[in-house]
């Protein structure tokens, strides 16, 4: 296993959320005064259903528009930090900045095969201009190896065909994210619906990514995953982060037990 916490020091990107409010139909769903994500390599984000975890992630991606407030990405070496205000940018700019999110609800391209999906994810804009009608070969040449590694690692049944089961689609969603080479990866229940051995593989891939300097935030209801993989855990309830700390502390905290875990969990 890779020892993430003691990996050589790299400057990890951070995301700072300030005074961020989001409401749907007049009901406030997320209201966060101040939150910094990315202090630790892998951070868990837990909380009851409807706490606002997915919405918070969508606010970071700016696929949900903020009512007010600001989301900032901080990256680069300590002495020369670069700040980008994500909440001023369109969603499609996030991937280019290395900010990537997987989807809780299954999202897929029905008309594209698994190979297509991977090549789409891998293709930089220069390959996709309308006049570049001969760029499939160079794209394949440059990236097929990478795609193949993931296809083998996760042992997809027939990558030239379409993703069949819900699990396969879920996995494909994660692989698409990984191929974007994220610097800040948000995972929204990545292992829900996956068989155990694949959950293990996904976790292994995430650990590897984190050890290479990517900041990971993971939402999961499977708490065994959270306790085992997170360096730090945020507990969210009613649109707010009410606690953060090492997994062990969160696990034993009264509020968390009352609001989420239920008695007898510890």
């Amino acid at each position, binding site marked *: 296993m890779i020892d993430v916490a003691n990996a050589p020091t790299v400057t990890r990107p951070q995301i700072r959320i300030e005074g961020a409010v989001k409401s749907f139909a007049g009901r406030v769903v997320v209201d966060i005064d101040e939150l910094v994500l990315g202090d630790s390599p892998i951070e868990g984000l837990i909380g009851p259903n409807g706490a606002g975890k997915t919405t918070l992630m969508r606010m970071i991606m700016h696929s949900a528009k903020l009512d007010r407030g600001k989301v900032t990405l901080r990256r680069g070496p300590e002495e020369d930090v670069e700040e980008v205000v994500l909440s001023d940018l369109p*969603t499609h700019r996030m991937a280019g900045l290395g900010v990537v999110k997987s989807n809780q609800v299954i999202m897929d391209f029905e008309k594209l095969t698994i190979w297509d999906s991977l090549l789409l994810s891998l293709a930089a804009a220069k390959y996709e201009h309308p006049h570049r009608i001969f760029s499939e070969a160079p794209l394949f040449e440059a990236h097929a190896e990478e795609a193949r590694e993931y296809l083998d690692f996760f042992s997809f049944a027939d990558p030239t065909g379409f993703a069949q089961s819900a699990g396969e689609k879920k996995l494909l969603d994660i692989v698409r994210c990984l191929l974007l080479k994220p610097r800040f990866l948000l995972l929204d229940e990545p292992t829900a619906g996956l068989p155990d051995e694949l959950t293990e593989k996904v976790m292994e891939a995430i650990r590897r990514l984190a050890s290479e300097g990517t900041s990971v935030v993971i939402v999961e209801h499977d708490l065994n995953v959270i306790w085992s993989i997170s360096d730090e855990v945020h507990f969210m309830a009613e649109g707010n982060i009410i606690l953060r700390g090492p997994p062990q502390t969160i696990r034993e905290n009264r509020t968390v037990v009352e609001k989420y875990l239920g008695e007898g969990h510890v």
Partner: protein
Amino acid sequence: MNLDWLDAFLLFGTFQVVMVIGLALLLHLQLGLARIANFGVVGFWAIGAYAFGVLFTKVDWSIGEPWPFLISMLFGTVVAGLAGLLVGWLIADLEIEGVLVGTLGFATVVAILVTTERGLTGGALGMGGLSFPFDIGKTKANELLWFGILFVVVGAIFYYVWRVHRSPYGRLLIAVGDNEPLARSLGKPTFQTKLWLFAIGSAGMGLLGAINGVMVHLLIPEGIGINVTLAAIVGLVLGGTARVWGAVLGVILTVGFFDIVVQSYLPLPRSWYTQAIPVLREMVFGAALIIVLLVRPFGILGDMRRDKLIRSTHRD
């Protein structure tokens, strides 16, 4: 060259078929891949024709042929492309109903402008003076050569579309049409993609409009009705929106069948030609469309088969 064997009507009918195939192929990129329902095809087509005509006939050219002709062709193409950029910008983020109304409305606006801007377009009287950029003898010979040029242009469009299916650009268009939020989250600038697709498609439609204008010599408002749009859409949907060959097959079966077989070879009463035939044509098209959509919702050739394509292009 003796061209007696060539029926003028047949030549004209075939010209129409090939021209509509060109329109349907361009529409295929928009509707079949990116799922943008462009109901304003004739608008871009007409803009190309009139922009070409205005520049070609109204300007006192001091340079010799073929430059005025070629420059005017290019002008028609570019103006149609710019119109596409503008319309695309207005509709790219709308729901399907909005796109429908927007593009349809655009074509209507073009038709109105053509009728009212008499100084430029000749209004209802029409705009003449569009002649072939060459003269190789008989009218029929000139028309045949012009048909050959159209054939090359549409052939090039076909090749482009065929290549797009096998390129990352095509994959991007399919992704945008299939699941736009997901494409966006993968870093794809979906709005911009749709905008450029609209501009390129419209430019191509404009070029075809200008080429058609030269063939018919006279641009009149009646020539830019919804029937042009319908011919392209019905043909494409019938053949299969998502398939390259769908446009070709569908248009041959509809426009080809009607404009060539029915009009040229069926012994229809002469008096039908102006009144009854256009109505009959729309009725037959509509009926064919309904039947095919009931029996084969994805058209005769069926839905896209990326699995087959991927297997054949990336054979290991």
